[in-house]
């Protein structure tokens, strides 16, 4: 990273002004974008997308097929991007959460349960689901910060607990939402110029923008970066780093619950096994997007572009006739390579 600063040229009069501005703040404009990590991720995505044109020109240049595929890709990455918001906050702040896939399932399943069994209205059911997310986030956060359990262990435990609850709440294997027009707010589609745009995508983009501004511009956002960068230094200046981390855990679990609501609103039903493996894909999207796995650096724009990379890989593979097993295998390889590359770039 900082190859240009030589330790031998220390000192005032000779100070080199090798001042690479920080990747955040209002000073970053279009010109700066291309020197940033996000540009690289966007490029990577476009290359993968372009490979579809090379390997399957018949499909790529057929408007109907390609618009359908693209629309589906955006729908599929919506939950990754929504949960990825919280995961980015968490990782920048120096922690992570492996229980998001299970939380997603519990979110969707309890939402259906509140609507069908308790006959609650959509807003009330949504509120309760979000509160379940808050409670899980507080539990994760307190166990990690106050009890000192590493987040790897604490959130794997929570992963298992929540998956157990998801299965318990789906004795028939899955739960269905009732046929309510209001659910289209989350799971519907709007057709614009012949393109079916999934509402999930609008939620994802909207939340990424809102939380992106909060991360970059608020005092809390500054404290998230400082906490993950150097926790001791942050504490010395009076920042309550435990509080920062607990809030990040709450944000992540709540967004995971919300992603479950959004998904079940689209599909109309959700299995107890929904969301298995999400944690890996989401952490990969976050890290591919330039968030430092060790904290202190990262952006939501990067995470969103990272989600696109994660979303386009299976499409490329399916179109080229590769089986599901090989897809999983190659996705794993790509993730490890991406994270490895990231670590090497930072050296």
């Amino acid at each position, binding site marked *: 990273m900082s190859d240009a600063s030589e330790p031998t040229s*220390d000192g005032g009069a000779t100070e080199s002004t090798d001042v690479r501005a920080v990747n955040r703040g209002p000073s970053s404009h279009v010109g700066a974008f291309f020197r940033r990590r996000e540009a690289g991720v966007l490029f990577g995505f476009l290359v993968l997308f372009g490979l579809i044109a090379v390997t399957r020109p018949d499909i790529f240049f057929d408007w109907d097929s390609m618009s359908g595929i693209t629309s589906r890709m955006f729908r599929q990455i919506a939950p990754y991007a929504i949960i990825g918001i919280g995961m980015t906050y968490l990782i920048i702040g120096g922690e992570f959460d492996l229980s998001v896939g299970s939380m997603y399932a519990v979110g969707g399943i309890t939402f259906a349960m509140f609507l069908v069994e308790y006959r609650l209205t959509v807003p009330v059911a949504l509120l309760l689901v979000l509160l379940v997310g808050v409670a899980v986030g507080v539990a994760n956060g307190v166990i990690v910060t106050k009890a000192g359990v590493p987040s790897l262990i604490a959130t794997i435990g929570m992963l298992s607990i929540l998956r157990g609850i998801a299965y318990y709440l789906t004795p028939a294997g899955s739960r269905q939402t009732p046929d309510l027009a209001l659910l289209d707010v989350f799971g519907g589609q709007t057709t614009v110029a012949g393109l079916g745009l999934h509402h999930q995508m609008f939620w994802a983009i909207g939340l990424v923008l809102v939380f992106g501004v909060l991360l970059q511009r608020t005092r809390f956002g*500054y404290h998230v970066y400082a906490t993950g960068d150097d926790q001791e230094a942050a504490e010395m200046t009076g920042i309550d780093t435990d509080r920062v981390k607990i809030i990040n855990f709450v944000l992540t679990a709540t967004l995971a619950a919300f992603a479950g609501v959004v998904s079940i609103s689209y599909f109309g039903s959700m299995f107890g096994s929904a969301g298995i493996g999400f944690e890996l894909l989401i952490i990969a999207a976050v890290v591919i997007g330039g968030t430092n796995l060790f904290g202190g650096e990262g952006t939501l724009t990067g995470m969103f572009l990272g989600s696109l990379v994660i979303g386009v890989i299976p499409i490329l593979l399916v179109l080229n006739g590769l089986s599901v097993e090989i897809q999983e295998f190659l996705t794993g390889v790509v993730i490890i390579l991406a994270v490895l590359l990231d670590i090497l770039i930072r050296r």
Partner: protein
Amino acid sequence: MSDQNPILHTEQLTKRFGNIHAVEDVDFSVTEGEVMAIVGDNGAGKSTLIKMLCGVHEPTSGEIYVRGENVHFDDYNDARAYGIETVYQELALAESQSVAANVFLGHEPIRESPLGRLLRLVDEDRMVAESKENLDRVKIPVDPKAKVQNLSGGQQQAVAIARALQSDPEILIMDEPTSALSIEGARNVLRVIDGLRNQGLTILLISHNIRHVLGIADRISVLAQGRLMGVRNTDDVDRNEIIALMMGAQDGSEFEEFELSESSEGTTA
């Protein structure tokens, strides 16, 4: 200088870690507006002494007084409330963040608009402008928007000092501010210290480097094995006397060794 009305003094200040006597019975005092150096060999108790003065360690026994008032610090915020700021040996900077963010860490200014106050939006323009002012005060050129990890050692030291000045302290404690720097970097930091003294700050400077200390301090307190061996005015003391005090009861062979390693320090850094 007289110690009639010291800004800071201690009485029989003692800190033990188990049976290690890190600081033992130290009666120490600092006069307003002076640069007081604390020197001593490795493990002499310098860091432990100042950590009691800035609220990190609780004394085992003894008292601390600020302007004659008996004080008890539970943490660095308590010390800060009495106008004591510290630049730690490890600097404690968030290296991936900007200079401005580090200067204001934990005290980011909020925008003066209803939305700004509601969302607690950081006033970045003000942060950049004010950290520039603070950095100008230390007279080492640093871009407030630069990432700290891309700065030289001297510039990082300047950022840590600028942050300490943010709360407008009366007493600034610096633990080994020159030890990790090149000759040029160290010279700059010494110039900064001189400038701050001229602005009226009281400075407690911890250092291994006797040459640096003789060049900048008004007085020198010498610690050896946790005890205060003596206090000297810089004007009427020489290097050998300081070293003799530092060595305490130890014999001359170590004295030779120390001379060697100490004089090579500046050229290899």
